[in-house]
C-alpha cells in the first residue's frame, strides 16, 4: 500500500471518533430530557450543566475531526 492511500484510510478511521461523540452528545441531551420531563420545575436551573456536558462531549468529537484534518492536510 502506498503512503497516499494509507493517509486517506487513516483519516477515514480518525473520523469514526466523531460518530462516537455523536452518541455522547445524544446521551447528554437524552438524559437531560428524560429527567426534565419527570421534574420540569427543576429543569431550568440545570441548563448550565446541560451545556457544560454538551461542550465536554462535543470537544472529543471535534478532536477526532482535527486529527483527521491533520492527517489529510499536514502530513
Amino acid at each position, binding site marked *: 500500500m502506498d503512503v497516499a492511500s494509507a493517509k486517506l484510510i487513516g483519516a477515514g478511521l480518525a473520523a469514526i471518533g466523531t460518530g462516537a461523540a455523536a452518541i455522547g452528545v445524544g446521551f447528554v441531551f437524552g438524559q437531560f430530557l428524560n429527567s426534565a420531563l419527570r421534574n420540569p420545575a427543576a429543569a431550568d436551573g440545570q441548563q448550565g450543566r446541560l451545556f457544560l456536558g454538551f*461542550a465536554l462531549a*462535543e470537544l472529543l468529537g471535534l478532536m477526532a475531526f482535527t486529527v483527521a484534518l491533520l492527517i489529510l492536510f499536514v502530513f
Partner: protein
Amino acid sequence: MAAAGKIDPMHQFTVEPLVPLHIGNYDISLTNSAAWMLATLAVIGLFMWGGMRRQVIPGRWQMAVEGLIGFVDNLVHVNIGPEGKKFTPFVFSLFTFILVANLLGMLPLAIVPGWHPFTPTSHFSITGLLAIMSFSLVLIIGFWRHGLHFLSLFVPQGTPWYMLPLIIPIEIVSFLVRPFSLALRLFVAMMAGHILMEVFGSFIVNGLSSGSVLGFGVGIVSFIFIVGVGALELLICALQAYVFALLTSLYLNDAVNLH
C-alpha cells in the same frame, strides 16, 4: 472555487492581505481577517450605540440590548455569584465578539462577485488569543486574591491522602489543557461547519451544471439538506459563543471562590 468537479473546501480560510503594509521586517498588512474583525466591532458598536438611549420606557432596540446584557449578567451571576459582577463586561465582550463574528461569517455575501465572507473565529490564532485572555485573567485573579493558596485548586476537597500523588498531576494537566480546549472547540466547530456548507454548496453547483437528470436530483437533495444545515449552523454559532462565555465564567468561578 475551482472549475466544476474539483471541490476545494479549505480555500475559504486563506488569509489574504487587502492593504499591504510593511514596517521594517514586519508584515502588518490589513488582511481580510482583520477587516472582518473590524466589521464585527462596527456591528457591535452600532448595536450598542443604538440601544444606549436610557429611556424609561425602552423601545425595541433598547429592549434587545438590555435583553442581551441581562442574559450575560444572569449567566455570570449564576456561575460566579455576587462577586462576579465585575467580570460581566469581560464575559459580555467575549460573548458578543464571538457571536457577531460567527454570524457575520455566515452571511451569504458570496453573491456579490469578488466578495466572500470570512469568519475570524475559524482560525486558531484568533480563538487561541481569546482563550489565552480568559485563561490569564483566571491566573491573575486567582494569584491576586489567594496568593500561593491558589495552588490548592489542584487538591479537590476531601481527597484521601493516599490518592494525592494520582489526583494532583491529573488536576494540573486538566487545568493546563483548559485554554487549548477552549480555543480548539470554537475553532473546529466553526471550521467544520463552513467546510460542510462549502462541500454541499459545491454539490449543488456541480450537480445543476452537469445537465443530467441525476445531477439535477443530487442538486435538489443537496439544496434541501443545506437549508437544514444552515439553520443548524446558526444555532451552533450562538451555542459556541454561549459555551465559551459559560466556560470562561466557570473558570473564573474557580479563581474567585476557591474552595
